[in-house]
């Protein structure tokens, strides 16, 4: 009974946050609304007896990725009042596609014969056991790809600072007011 009430609460919060993201005029409000969804999904993981995933959800999504997106929003300097969504006359096709996708998924889910397992055991230890035995190579590759991606992110984001002198000069001639002077 308690689980049902909690699931309903978290589900409503998650859906409301997602709808707030797609309906917000300002992207900043949308990101804050998405934060509610991410935290609610942490609660859903707790309901599934997955404490480790709930903690990771709060740390990685609720903390790191939200802050990263807010920083990018601030640094990219988008105009606060501008509505960055498609005009209303172009929104019907995405809406049809999304609703159709949900209908297809709901139909498939309701008809699929899942083999529900009777036991309901989850512990963090089993994650570690399988992660460091059977999936140790994907684990290493995941760490390597994360390192490469973040190094690449730094390189891409700093590309203008590291570009050749003539390249920067030609850009500054083309758009004089674009580059702000950063003291090295």
């Amino acid at each position: 009974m308690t689980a049902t009430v909690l699931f309903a609460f978290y589900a409503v919060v998650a859906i409301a946050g997602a709808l707030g993201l797609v309906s917000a005029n300002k992207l900043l409000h949308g990101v804050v609304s998405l934060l509610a969804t991410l935290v609610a999904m942490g609660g859903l993981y707790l309901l599934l007896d997955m404490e480790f995933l709930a903690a990771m959800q709060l740390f990685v999504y609720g903390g790191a990725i939200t802050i990263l997106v807010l920083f990018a929003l601030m640094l990219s300097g988008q105009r606060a009042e501008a509505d960055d969504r498609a005009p209303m006359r172009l929104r019907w096709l995405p809406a049809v596609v999304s609703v159709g996708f949900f209908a297809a998924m709901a139909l498939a889910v309701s008809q699929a014969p899942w083999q529900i397992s009777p036991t309901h055991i989850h512990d963090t230890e089993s994650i570690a056991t399988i992660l460091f035995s059977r999936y140790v190579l994907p684990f290493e590759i995941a760490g390597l790809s994360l390192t490469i991606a973040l190094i690449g992110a730094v390189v891409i984001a700093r590309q203008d600072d590291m570009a050749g002198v003539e390249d920067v000069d030609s850009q500054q001639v083309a758009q004089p007011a674009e580059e702000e002077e950063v003291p090295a």
Partner: protein
Amino acid sequence: MIGLNHYLFLAAALFSIGLYGALTSKSALRVVICVELILNAVNLNLAAFSAYVAPTQAVGMNFVIFLMVVAAAEVGLALAIIISLNRRNDIEAIDSIRRLKG
């Protein structure tokens, strides 16, 4: 009693909302955020399957962890590209970005 199908319906709804948001967006940043929402819906699917179908193996939970790694790498790279594009020529709309090379 909450079963597997409830989680799957919820994840499908979140996925659809994220899909709608990504399709109706003009700014690259909003697309990235909506893709994050979609990845979260997939995570919920995997976790629900792990809990209800194969709870003794914890494979689905490992997939969720790998997907979180991929999502973190993806959002870091995407935000770097967006910042770089913005700094270069103040592009806001994704349909006006025609070249990514150099």
